[in-house]
């Protein structure tokens, strides 16, 4: 080979570059190594390592996690594992699960928590799910709708463990369950508030793809706006990506050019894109899954997804010794979501709009009004 002919300096450089290349590769694969390591360690260590690693930047969460890990209130309580395809601290979907799960650990509902981020669906997800099951975690939650096949493949080998993923359409069989995302219920109320403060214009909706959880959010938001402004129309755009903010913002600007003034997004990228477009064009926008008041001055209201309530149902099934999963659904009426109005807008909402908002919220909560669920265009 070439090395035989290389002068000495070349060989030293080659060795140096080889080391650099290997460290580059090792660093790039670092996430996986860490995940594997943490999931095969002793359970209590796993909690501390996995949880504190991910919370390094978030002081309050770290503090609570460490406190709970140091003095587990109930060591017989179920051990919860969650895998997710992106980052926990993404300010939306991941963070809702992260906060919900840490809340359960803090309150002693679970005795141990394994959090794994950046786990792509497919072979890697199956390895992570299997490792968690082998380490005695039960229930095991896969926090994305595209984990369905992986969950089913692994669940067949662990009939005593409950596996749940974020399908959102009642995909339940034996020990595989699914949890609901009834965001449209909160979205309806946001639509009322948006139309009340905006007073004119149309609705722009966007999601990564046209999935029922997203499309129904847009339709409910439009219905809410129409409760205030009956002539309101709207459009929904599938951006084609859950994270591409620039593309999502361009989609929203296109809708704005067609007369949209009220923006609602579904998924991190589409939501940020809609909020950015609303900020730039004096429109109003809506937070998704978490309180996004700080993301921009255009955010009138947000809904917080109370995943702790959903996870609590799943953990309760395991604690009761069940091995059959179900469709875990916590609607707005049962506290599955909190609707928050941004402080900056609180005193700018017209009195009649606020009255309508409160009336519909009360009606949803006592069951006398159901927000229409429209899962697809048609």
């Amino acid at each position: 080979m070439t090395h035989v002919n290389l002068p000495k300096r070349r060989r030293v450089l080659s060795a140096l570059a080889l080391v650099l290349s290997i460290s580059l590769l090792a660093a790039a694969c670092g996430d996986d190594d860490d995940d594997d390591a943490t999931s095969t360690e002793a359970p209590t260590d796993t909690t501390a390592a996995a949880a504190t690693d991910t919370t390094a930047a978030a002081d309050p969460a770290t503090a609570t996690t460490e406190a709970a890990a140091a003095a587990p209130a109930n060591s017989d309580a179920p051990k919860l594992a969650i895998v997710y395809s992106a980052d926990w601290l993404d300010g939306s979907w991941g963070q809702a699960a992260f906060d919900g799960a840490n809340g359960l650990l803090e309150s002693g509902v679970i005795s141990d928590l394994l959090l794994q981020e950046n786990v792509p669906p497919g072979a890697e997800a199956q390895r992570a799910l299997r490792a968690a099951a082998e380490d005695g975690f039960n229930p095991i939650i896969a926090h994305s709708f595209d984990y369905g096949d992986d969950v089913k493949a692994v669940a067949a080998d662990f009939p005593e463990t409950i596996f749940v993923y974020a399908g959102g359409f009642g995909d339940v069989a034996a020990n595989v369950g699914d949890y609901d995302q009834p965001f449209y219920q909160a979205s309806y109320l946001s639509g009322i508030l948006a139309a009340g403060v905006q007073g004119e214009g149309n609705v722009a909706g966007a999601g990564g793809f046209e999935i029922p959880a997203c499309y129904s959010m847009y339709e409910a938001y439009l219905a809410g706006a129409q409760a205030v402004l009956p002539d309101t129309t709207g459009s929904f755009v599938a951006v084609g990506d859950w994270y591409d903010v620039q593309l999502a913002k361009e989609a929203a600007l296109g809708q704005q050019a067609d007369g949209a003034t009220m923006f609602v997004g579904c998924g991190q990228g589409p939501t940020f894109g809609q909020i950015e477009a609303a900020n730039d064009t004096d429109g109003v926008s809506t937070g998704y899954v978490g309180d996004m008041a700080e993301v921009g001055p255009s955010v009138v209201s947000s809904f917080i997804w109370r995943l702790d309530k959903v996870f609590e149902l799943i953990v309760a099934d395991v604690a009761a010794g069940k091995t059959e999963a179900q469709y875990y659904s916590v609607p707005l009426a049962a506290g599955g979501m909190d609707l928050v109005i941004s402080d900056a807008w609180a005193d700018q909402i017209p009195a009649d709009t606020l009255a309508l908002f409160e009336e519909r919220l009360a009606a949803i909560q006592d069951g006398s009004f159901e927000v229409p669920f429209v899962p697809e265009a048609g």
Partner: protein
Amino acid sequence: MDVIFKLATLEAAIRLGVPVALAALGALVSERTGVLNLGLEGMMLSGALGGYAANEATGSAWLGVLAGTLIGAGCGAILALLVVTARANQVVTGIAFTLLALSATTYLFQLRYSIGGIPPRVNRLDMTPLVLLTLACVAALWFLFNRTTLGLAMGAVGEAPEAADALGYKVERLRWIATMIGGGLAGLGGAALVCGPLGLFIENVTAGRGWVALALVVFAGWKPGAAVAGAILFGLCDAVQLRLQGTATDVPYEAFLALPYVVTLVALVLRARASRTPAALGVPYVRGM
């Protein structure tokens, strides 16, 4: 189809196209000297984070753009050390670099900005200076490759490194220079995205634009002007499909989503015969071998 000819659609095409165009110019420079830069996406992302951080720290979007360019050039130097000096496999090294950059930028960003949630907005540049900057880069590269000895030597190194070496040109040095310029342009593209139309950074903000840029270089036949035109065309396809989705409802939306990629594939096929791939692309140079 009047949506294509609306001014707003063309503006959107330019906003979407400029970052990709700059990155494509970067890929083009290093590929002309025979270095395949599959780390392009990672260099864009690094430049985007560097540009965002510098912009936030100084309050100047132009300093952000400058910082993104310098960080991109630094990334180019790392790649050059690995694939030019040490002759590591260019495909594997480039992909590894992009994977590393994705993880590293996410980590650094979360370390600094996730405390308490929302990262701050930074100052934004208008598109006009960024478009002029892109055109200036095209003109400079055209001049470099067609009117200067350095540029011709770079091209020679990409076509026949043995011959260039025999004529006394330093193959490694020229590849180093080109890879650093290329990295700098990719970093500039990332910084132009973050300090231009967006004004914010999130994880993986470039979302695959570097890979699109790599395909555009092939489409453009390694010519700077054509690469920029291709980037704007790609941006136009995206801008149009997003707008068509809002108006037409009879066609499945997936067809619109696929439009930019279909156009790219068709263009690549049509241009395949006229391919002007540098003969030594991706081949490490070892004197006397």
